[in-house]
């Protein structure tokens, strides 16, 4: 499904601030995999997701989706295969546009955008049905500016949008980190529903170890631009926060740097 082959990304190369953000990373995802990613700040989690999404070119290696090499494809062309939700709820939607307009932007992802109306009446019905399932009362607010909604509502809509038009891959970059605990739990539940219903291959970064354990069928831990742990299947089901921390000490030989990961 998704294949990363020896991906390397170096920021500020050949300067004193040189930072190897991704160090020869290789990763293969099977169809329908739900991978959670944990690791301290600066471990390379977001960089990996952005490399897959094409936010910047990588310095080495190859990225393949279903066997197609997308390494050289610009970000907006990769979007055809990839749905994304960002950490900042403001990032995933266009604040000055209506809910229905935002959704129509998503439903045309990867399609040619010509000079036909962006929204037709039967589209509205579809959007209403989709919104209704979020159970946030948004189905009657199609022509509300997204900027007027709360962070949780915006993330939920972004999730819906990311799942539209059958993406091959869903990338979630700490998409609950900016929300209060109650809203975060709700958005996570919606995430789970959407992923299961659409059988989406998903990568979810989280700072919360318990969330990483509870969700998905595979867990990877990153440190200093490398994948240092990769736990799947039965072994993952048996994980606890303690055993995860212990495994981390063993593999990296250092204490887990991030307090947020411990406390979360």
């Amino acid at each position, binding site marked *: 499904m998704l294949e990363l082959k020896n991906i390397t990304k170096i920021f500020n190369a050949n300067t004193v601030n040189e930072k190897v953000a991704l160090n020869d990373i290789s990763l293969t995802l099977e169809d329908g995999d739900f991978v959670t990613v944990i690791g301290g700040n600066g471990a390379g989690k977001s960089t990996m997701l952005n490399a897959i999404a094409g936010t910047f070119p990588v310095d080495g290696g190859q990225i393949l989706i279903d066997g197609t090499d997308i390494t050289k494809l610009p970000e907006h062309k990769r*979007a055809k295969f990839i749905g994304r939700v960002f950490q900042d709820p403001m990032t995933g939607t*266009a604040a000055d*546009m209506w809910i229905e307009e935002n959704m129509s932007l998503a439903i045309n992802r990867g399609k040619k*955008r*010509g000079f036909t109306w*962006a929204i037709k009446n039967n589209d509205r019905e579809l959007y209403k049905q989709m919104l209704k399932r979020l159970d946030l009362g948004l189905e009657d607010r199609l022509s509300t500016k997204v900027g007027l909604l709360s962070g949780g509502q915006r993330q939920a809509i972004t999730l819906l949008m990311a799942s539209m038009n059958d993406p091959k891959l869903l990338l979630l970059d700490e998409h609950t980190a900016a929300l209060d605990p109650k809203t975060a739990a709700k958005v996570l539940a919606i995430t789970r529903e959407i992923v299961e219903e659409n059988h989406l291959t998903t990568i979810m970064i989280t700072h919360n170890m318990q969330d990483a354990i509870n969700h998905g069928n595979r867990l990877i831990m990153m440190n200093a631009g490398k994948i240092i742990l990769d736990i799947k299947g039965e072994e993952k089901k048996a994980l606890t926060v303690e055993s995860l921390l212990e495994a981390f000490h063993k593999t990296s030989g250092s204490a887990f740097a991030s307090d947020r990961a411990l406390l979360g």
Partner: protein
Amino acid sequence: MGLLNAMPGAAAQGLIWGIMAIGVYITFKVLDLADLTVDGSMVTGMAVCAMLMAAGWNVWPAMLIAVLAGMGCGLVTGLFHTLMGIPAILSGILTQLILWSVNLKIMGKANQALPARTFDVLISQLEKYHALVILALFCVVLVTLLYCFFGTKFGAALRATGCNEKMARAQGINTDMHKVVGLALSNGVVALSGALMAQYSGKADINDGRGAIVIGLAAVIIGEAIIGKMPQNYIVRMTGVIVGGIVYYVVYQTVIFLGLDTDLLKMLSALVVAVFLAVPHLKKTYFNKPRKKEVSKNA
């Protein structure tokens, strides 16, 4: 009495500036880019229209070529910005300077007369009421066309590009392409207003575009103030901008009538725009009362 007599003329010129301001609105508000090309592309529209008509062309094809030339100006700025990575504001300044030379070359001199008595122009200051009607029709058609355009998939993608670039790219929108198209469209509209201005005033002059961007911004800002809290769709917003252009020009004529030194007019225009552009910042910095709800959330 003199002032009242000047009003139809002021309104007609205001409509022309209103059309220009629609061009500014497309870049400044829809695309969220400050595009300074307009000072040049307005004159390009004037020069192309005037020269073609002087060469015996019919007014309609002459205006069409003028619009296309304006779109070409926007294209250059767009490519400077996207392909070469030059900040939008600098790209516009560079194109504006290029256009100074280009416009001189188009006209072969600093100005070109286009007297309504000799040429079959659409509008002229000699027949102000006639000009008002024709210009109003132009505005209606332009606003309708743009409204429809913003409602298409392509137009929605262009608006998304201006609203949230990161999101737009994540939704598969080629943001660079849409910026270039938006800049071309904007400067095409500006050149149209230039072509109309050349006919109305009976001349094209290399200096006529100076400060056009400021007048455009003024019209956009006045327009926003006028529509205020009215329900906003693009028809209302763009109509507001055109009315803003009229208001600007009527005020302009009035202060001239009241005997203000005309040398100071450009400075005053710029200062008025500066004050209004500062309003959002001033509100945020000095008049911001944090709401209780937000405070407790952040704590």
